[in-house]
């Protein structure tokens, strides 16, 4: 530790920290452009100049290591003058077009120019202009505004793992870009918009839409993958205009996947905004009582075992517990949440969660991926693996289809049998990790693979009271919550495949679109409760319009088993309602009202069903004290190659299938990839 004085305050920081970090520890804010705490230090903007006693001139604090007894002054005439000089140079080639710049109001350069800028420019010559670059369908560029901080270059090569951005030419002619015109091949490109301190890299779909101060900001949780990234929903009126990440060091740090950030235009399209009832083979708009009446008439005299319910991938825990309770009151045990048929074992929580935790990846020292491509299934988690990898001493191996994970990973083979080759590597590690993806579990031998992966983890010492190296990486935001609630076939109940093909007479789909809808029996009466007119709604006999994740206060459990809560950002459209309230209202029509009348009471019920719902954000200490594995015979693994769970990252659910932005991304990134594969 080094002790130093910052503006008269004494602080103690670790050796190797920078002066800037010491200043922050002392509570002094240092202006900066190029410095970013999650990227390497470039030290090229010079905005963070401070005075260090005995140093002959101001020093760039971000790149200056602390020393014991150092005396730092951050608010002297010399410092102010130095920073003013830097600002004047930065503004020489900056267009000062704040009134027409989308960054206006949330721009680091604008903010800092208030403190260090001059009221007029002394630069009489022509400003330079730079041609805009094409970086793909998500990031809009306005390169004349670029101040060459190189944050985007460092982000793309260090965090996203695609070294495609760079600075070409030199001096006055230096330009930041890709040199060859191409769309950035990363699922994290939206983060470039956030880290750009000026208005050079902008949100393309959001261009010229709103000013930041007009927006209503609501904390929420992302549902497009199972990571549960913390997000902020920015809305104006009834419209979600953009989605930004919220910092949560344990989950997404400050990053967000492109699908999660840019899918929100799908919330305005193909929405179910009123109930529909099928009459003479055609759907017609109906009122709520009519819709409820049609379902109640069908349910009359229907025995419990002829009624089934399927929970979709985007459901909040509140609506799932309400549906489960409704089914119980109807005497049905036919519940399922595994639309993809993943052989998940709900028997113990650590059989189906990401036990190492996302932050725990940074403590691991070897990793094996089984049938998982985290780059497509959870790109932010993939960035965390990459971050760990950058620190070294972290062998990565995977079985499954050959894939570019953005980091060096050893491909062991495409069948599960190859995991044995990883045993030695994992055994040599102190804290090894095994990640099982949905691509491995959704096969007929999924249970065997799950058991085999557990057995491997146990045999290499990944399961100890201090360390839990067995992980399941989910792709559906609702899945872990559903498993926690036991949204699975009860005693003698039918799983989804048994419900199809006429296995039940009434099938209640709670936002379930991701299974083979055509396999539903012709005489099965389908109730679709959800927010998008997607596959499920097309087959439905009654449609109950529900709320999307931005429109309801919902509890979600991420792949780690972390319980998180989002809040209402906008109201659901038209006659759509919050899903738990729809189920509660319908239960009253049946004369069997569910025992809760407010969201708080539903949450109490959640906690009663499973105590994990009592505490938000917290994860229990995750050692493994019981080595007994999931049911399933490890010997039952067959030799078939593993297939990826997610092929098109951009379109995986009803919201992003309705999104024009995601369709554009699919055209740009996925279609050429599939064509090349053919």
């Amino acid at each position, binding site marked *: 530790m080094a002790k130093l004085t910052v503006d008269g305050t004494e602080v103690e920081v670790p050796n190797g920290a920078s002066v800037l970090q010491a200043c922050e520890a002392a509570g002094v804010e240092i202006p900066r452009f190029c410095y970013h705490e999650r990227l390497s230090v470039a030290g090229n903007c010079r905005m963070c100049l401070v005075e260090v006693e005995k140093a002959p001139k101001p020093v760039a604090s971000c790149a200056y290591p602390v020393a014991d007894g150092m005396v730092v002054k951050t608010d002297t005439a010399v410092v102010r003058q130095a920073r003013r000089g830097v600002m004047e140079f930065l503004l020489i080639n900056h267009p000062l077009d704040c009134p027409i710049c989308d960054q206006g109001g949330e721009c680091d350069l604008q903010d800092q120019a208030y403190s260090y800028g001059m009221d007029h420019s002394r630069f009489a010559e022509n400003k330079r202009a730079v041609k805009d670059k094409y970086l793909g369908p998500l990031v809009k560029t306005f390169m004349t505004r670029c101040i060459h901080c190189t944050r985007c270059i460092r982000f793309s*090569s260090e965090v996203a793992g695609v*070294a495609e951005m*760079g600075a*070409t*030419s*030199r*001096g*006055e002619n230096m330009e930041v870009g890709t*040199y*060859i015109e191409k769309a950035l091949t990363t699922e994290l490109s939206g983060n470039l918009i956030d880290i750009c301190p000026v208005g050079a890299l902008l949100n393309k779909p959001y261009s010229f839409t709103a000013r930041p101060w007009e927006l209503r900001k609501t904390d929420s949780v992302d549902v497009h993958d199972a990571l549960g990234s913390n997000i902020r929903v920015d809305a104006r009126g009834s419209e979600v205009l953009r989605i930004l990440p919220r910092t949560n060091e344990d989950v997404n740090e400050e990053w967000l996947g492109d699908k999660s950030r840019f899918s929100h235009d799908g919330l305005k399209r193909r929405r179910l905004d009123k109930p529909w009832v099928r009459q003479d083979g055609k759907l017609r708009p109906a009122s709520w009582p009519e819709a409820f009446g049609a379902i109640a008439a069908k349910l009359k005299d229907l025995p419990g075992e002829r009624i089934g319910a399927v929970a979709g991938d985007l459901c909040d825990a509140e609506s799932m517990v309400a549906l489960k309770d409704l089914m119980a009151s109807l005497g049905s045990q036919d519940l399922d949440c595994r639309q993809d048929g993943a052989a998940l074992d709900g028997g113990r929580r650590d059989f189906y969660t990401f036990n190492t935790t996302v932050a725990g990846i940074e403590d691991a020292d070897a990793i094996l991926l089984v049938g998982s491509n985290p780059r497509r299934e959870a790109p932010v988690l993939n960035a965390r693996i990459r971050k760990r990898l950058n620190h070294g001493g972290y062998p990565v191996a995977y079985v499954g289809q050959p894939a570019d994970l953005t980091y060096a990973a050893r491909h062991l083979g495409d069948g599960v049998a190859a995991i044995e080759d990883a045993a030695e590597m994992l055994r040599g590690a102190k804290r090894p990790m095994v990640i099982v993806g949905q691509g491995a579990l959704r096969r007929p031998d999924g249970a065997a693979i799950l058991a085999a992966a557990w057995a491997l983890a146990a045999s290499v010492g990944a399961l100890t009271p201090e360390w839990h190296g067995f992980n399941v990486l989910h792709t559906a935001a609702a899945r872990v919550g559903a498993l926690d609630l036991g949204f699975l076939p009860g005693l003698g109940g039918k799983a989804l495949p048994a419900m199809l093909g006429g296995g039940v007479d009434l099938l209640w789909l709670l936002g379930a679109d991701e299974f083979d809808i055509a396999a539903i029996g012709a005489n099965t009466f389908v109730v679709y409760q959800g927010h998008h007119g997607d596959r499920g709604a097309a087959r439905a006999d009654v449609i109950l319009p529900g709320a999307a994740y931005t429109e309801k206060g919902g509890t979600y459990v991420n792949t780690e088993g972390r319980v998180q809560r989002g809040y209402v950002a906008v109201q659901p459209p038209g006659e759509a309602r919050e899903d738990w309230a729809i189920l509660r209202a319908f239960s009253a029509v049946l004369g069997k009202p569910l025992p809760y009348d407010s969201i708080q009471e539903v949450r109490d019920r959640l906690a009663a069903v499973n105590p994990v719902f009592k505490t938000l954000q917290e994860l229990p200490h995750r050692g493994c004290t019981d080595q007994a594995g999931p049911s399933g015979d490890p010997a039952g693994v067959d030799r078939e190659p593993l297939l990826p769970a997610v092929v098109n990252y951009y379109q995986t659910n009803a919201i992003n299938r309705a999104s024009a932005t995601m369709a554009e991304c699919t055209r740009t990134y996925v279609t050429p990839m599939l064509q090349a594969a053919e």
Partner: protein
Amino acid sequence: MSEHLGGPHGSQVGLGTAENIGDGSSGEGAAQPAHFAFDEASEAEIASILTKYPPSRKASGVLPLLYVVQGQMRRQTGSAWVPRVAMDVVAARLEVPPIRVYEVATFYLMFNTNPIGRHHLQVCGTTPCWLRGSEEVTRACRDETGIKGWRQTSDDGMFTMSEVECLGACVNAPILQVDDDYYEDLDYDRTVALLQALRRGEKPQPGSVIGRITSAPEGGPTTLNTIPIAGE
């Protein structure tokens, strides 16, 4: 540079420094070949270059390899430049992302990212050369080749002319660097003669064109020209 200093030809067209550096973007517009592969001579050079770096640090070989590319292009096409596909080949050879090579190749003015003429005339325009008459050298180049502005190529494809910063040979100013060789102590007539010789396919002896030995005074050394005898 020179237009700010107000030389007699400073106001002529195309002296902007911006063009002197290149267009900064990819050379997509230029006639980029579709394919590039190192030939045998280049492979031999590369093998010897890469022995200088440990395998984990072979990215350091990017500058010498770009020179190898430029040399091979000169041998094969008569124009010493680095096509984009060649940068990709260098990147693959050094196992670095292509953008890292693009950055280097566009940063250094020694690498031409667009095709040039058979000979690259690089006139030094920095102060000592300018004081010693670099503008006369420039004028001679213009008159002899018909090139109007910097970074342009003569109609016969023989010459491309660019202005460079100090070549570090100020004692023999003014300097004209032709491809890799320095021609020193030039004036208008000597430059014209040099260019004519080049046009004829000759390769005049590099160095001082007036016969100075390296940077010794004209006519031979004036001091230290006797060898002191020990004990005298």
